């Protein structure tokens, strides 16, 4: 049995779902950030897999993935910076308690 596109997609979907679950249910902003990274990586896997199996010569997916990783890194940096700033001023990173803008 060789590895087919489906296997990668299933892996990607599973990772995405785990990430989504984490992003929607966790209270800690750091965990939410990690979950989001997980979702991004899930899409990276899907992109590379599609690229490899459907247009093997073009490397489009791989290029996209590299962009995506760069953006994810930047996003993580900014996200963590925000979390740090919030933590400094409010001494918590529990998202349910960060509700200044709520009615």
């Amino acid at each position, binding site marked *: 049995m060789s590895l087919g596109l489906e296997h990668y997609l299933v892996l990607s979907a599973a990772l995405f779902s785990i990430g*989504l679950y984490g*992003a*929607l*249910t966790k209270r800690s902003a750091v965990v*939410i950030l990690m979950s989001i990274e997980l979702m991004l990586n899930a899409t990276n896997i899907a992109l590379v897999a599609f690229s490899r199996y459907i247009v093997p010569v073009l490397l489009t997916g791989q290029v996209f993935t590299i962009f995506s990783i760069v953006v994810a890194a930047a996003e993580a940096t900014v996200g963590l910076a925000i979390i740090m700033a919030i933590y400094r001023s409010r001494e918590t990173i529990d*998202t*349910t308690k960060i*509700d200044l*803008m*709520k*009615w």
Partner: protein
Amino acid sequence: METVIPNELVWLIFLLPLLSFAVISLILRPFFSNKPRLSGYISISAIFGSFILSIWALTSILSAPSHELAIPDFNWLVIDSAITIHLGLIMDSLTAVMLIVVTLVSLMIQMYSQGYMQGDPSYHRYYAYMSLFTASMLGLVMVDNLLIMFVFWELVGLCSYLLIGFWFHRPAAANAAKKAFIVTRIGDFGFLAAILLLLSKTGTLDIAQLHSLAIAGTLAGTVLTLAAIGIFLGAVGKSAQFPLHVWLPDAMEGPTPVSALIHAATMVAAGVFLVARMFPLFEHSEVALLTVAIIGGLTAIFAATMGLVMTDIKRVLAYSTISQLGYMMLGLGVGGIAIGIFHLFNHAFFKALLFLGAGSVSHATGTFDMRQMGGLRKVMPWTYATFLIASLSIAGIWPLAGFWSKDEILLSSINNQPILFYLAMVTVFMTAFYMFRVVFLTFGGQYRGDNSGSHSARPHESPSVMIMPMVVLAVLAVGSGWLNVTGGFSQFLGGGETRGFFEGLFHGFTHTLPGLPIPLAWISLILAGLGILLAYAIYSARWLSAERITRLFAPLHMLFSRKYWFDELYEHIIARIVLLKGLFAGLKFFDSRGIDGAVNGIARTTVATGRVIRKAQTGQLQLYGMFIILGVVAIILAMYLSG
């Protein structure tokens, strides 16, 4: 002065006082405030110039064919062919007579004011207003267009407002000024409506053209009647005729020379002048002419009754003015221009004199309350003499001025409106009575005032600068009536018959009317004599007790002294309760609660709805995410199921 007056100089007649107003208010008052006399001199020189020019204009008109001078006009408001309003002058006999009255009386009064207003901190302002008033009044009598006349009509009203409220720090003066303006504006409402009606029906507001349209019969019927009555409504307001008479007695809050000039001699007579000026319109509408006569006759007797009981000397004179203006209206209504204007002409002199006399008396005693006067005959001989002459004149004693014009009015009314004639006869009696009541209370008996008062230790005669104008006016109050002895005055104004001087001098006594046992003049003289006698009996000889008579006629006395409750009716019931507290307050409530309430209600409803609905926005991103995912799943399922 053989030559005809040049057009430029005619314009100057009313531009001179206007210039004086500008000089005083723009130059003298800001830069020479420490030299108040200067403004008096400027103003008096200006009016003197106008007076000289008016005489020149009069002689020119006398020698002109058909007694008219043509003065070219300027465009004031022209909008293509749709509307044309010219600013032009009409120089006919009526204008000439009014010019003489206005400039002469104004000149005398402004000279008198130098003494009366001496030391007033607002001396500049006084003369500025006086100049502006004189200019506006002269403009009013000279212009040839109804709309421009309305402009000056309003301006004299404005000056009247400013001068009544001259001592604006006194609440009574400020109130009286406001009242005068608003009440006369009710009349102006009619005047303006008539102007609109005339313009829309004839397309012109040129007075001469309106005359010819009325005479030709093009302007006739309901339109003519409505227009005439609208114009008359304006006159009613300005000339303080019933039922808009309430403002004039209160207007006595102004300085006395102002009362003399504006509220006795000139401005209040502008209503009479207006009717005379538009007389062809009235002549061709029986209803309008009858209205003028009835309102005039009623006002004459109605105001006289109130004059009987007033204790303030200026108020007596004010009611007497209303009554005399009623006479003039009656004269216009039953007789014509000449008769009404002739009385206006005579009245201007003797009534101005009466007011100046009252001013002189108050200058001496510091009060207008006749109960605080008495015995002034000895200390103020000149004032007494001139006041007596004026009183005899207004009472209609032969051969003083008042006799002649009053007699003509009575003569015309017995021929045309017998009922009004009887009212007028009663008024003759009342006039003589209340005037001599004033004379006896003020000058006769003993001084009842407070000798220790701060104003002056003892009453004293006024300075000569005040006496001189009074003497001049006294001469006129005696003589102005003789102008028409030969009928020349009437003829100049377009009516009447010519007689020889001596024949005319006794004309009234030889002129018998069918149905009358003795000549009319005798009857009116006897009535006037009886009035004087009664006043003498009560207030001088004290054969009859004033108190007892008052008690005897208590209800009537109450009615008269409370002025028939007109002030209460207008100010309290109509203005305060019905309008301000009722209608206007209701509208304000509707505005703030109804309309604005609805607006705010919509806003509140929106906010309240938002307050409920926004609960759905928890602010929890994760919850939102959950809903998004559920939504996506739902959409995918739906697409999958539907194939």
